[in-house]
């Protein structure tokens, strides 16, 4: 499956790692500064793992890769996430 999806598909993977499910939260791209809900990212579902890219500049925002006994979560392309209090 090579067609990209969007960040809605990240809800399942992220709900296992972060509370609450953050797909509705605003996050800022480290590269271009765009602030948008994580659900609006471009998501490649078998990259391998899930890779989310900025819809504005294509920079990699986040990646989730499953290994045998661990899940690797990279948020290297997100400089800030706005969390509800």
């Amino acid at each position, binding site marked *: 499956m090579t067609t990209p999806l969007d960040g809605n598909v990240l809800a*399942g993977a992220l709900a296992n790692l972060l509370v609450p499910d953050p797909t509705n939260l605003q996050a800022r791209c480290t590269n271009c500064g765009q602030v948008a809900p994580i659900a609006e990212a471009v998501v490649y579902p078998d990259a391998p793992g899930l890779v989310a890219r900025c819809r504005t500049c294509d920079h990699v925002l986040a990646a989730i890769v499953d290994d045998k006994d661990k899940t690797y979560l990279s948020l290297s392309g997100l400089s800030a996430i706005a969390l509800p209090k």
Partner: protein
Amino acid sequence: MRLVLDVPTWPGNEAGTHVDVRLTAPDGYQATRSYSVATSDRGRVVLGIEELPDGEVSPFLVREVRAGDKLEIHGPLGSYFLWRPGQSNRPVQLIAGGSGVVPLHAMAAAHAAASDSTLFRLVYSVRTPAHVYFRDELAALAGPSFTVDYVYTRQAPPGWGGTVGRLTRDSLASTTIAPHERPRIFVCGSTRFAETVAAWLLDLGHSARDILTERYGGK
């Protein structure tokens, strides 16, 4: 195809959410796909699944699954592509391509269940009458505050007065709530459908902030 799951521990869900279904082969190979929740009621969760002939998961769910089989599901999931009653009194435009109608049907049902009087309209693009999901349910929901406009892309029902063919920017403009009424818009379908429609909506003068999309993948 409609898949009805008994999930005694289901906590209920908001309209627009999905579940992840995970299949595990005897050799341990796993495949996970997302499916929107059409309706749920007291531990009974209804999905609407379109079979992609060369797909890994959907043919299994449509053809192989039998009553009594156990499936691994995770959900309800998603906090973005949701409609909540009472959230806003702006009108709502729903735009579905194919199985993308599933979460939008959930929104229309939630809107009716809440007796919410905000105006709802659905444009539903579908190949042929045989491909329509939830036709009876949508007809039952239709009324003064909810209308459905079908777009048949390959074949229309007998006696159909309209044209047959793909949605265009012009037909979208004439069947959807006008930009000056500031509708909140939910678009769901294949990635190409969602992106084409979202681009047209921007052209027509809707604001990017008012357009929520959910992309299902595919062409």
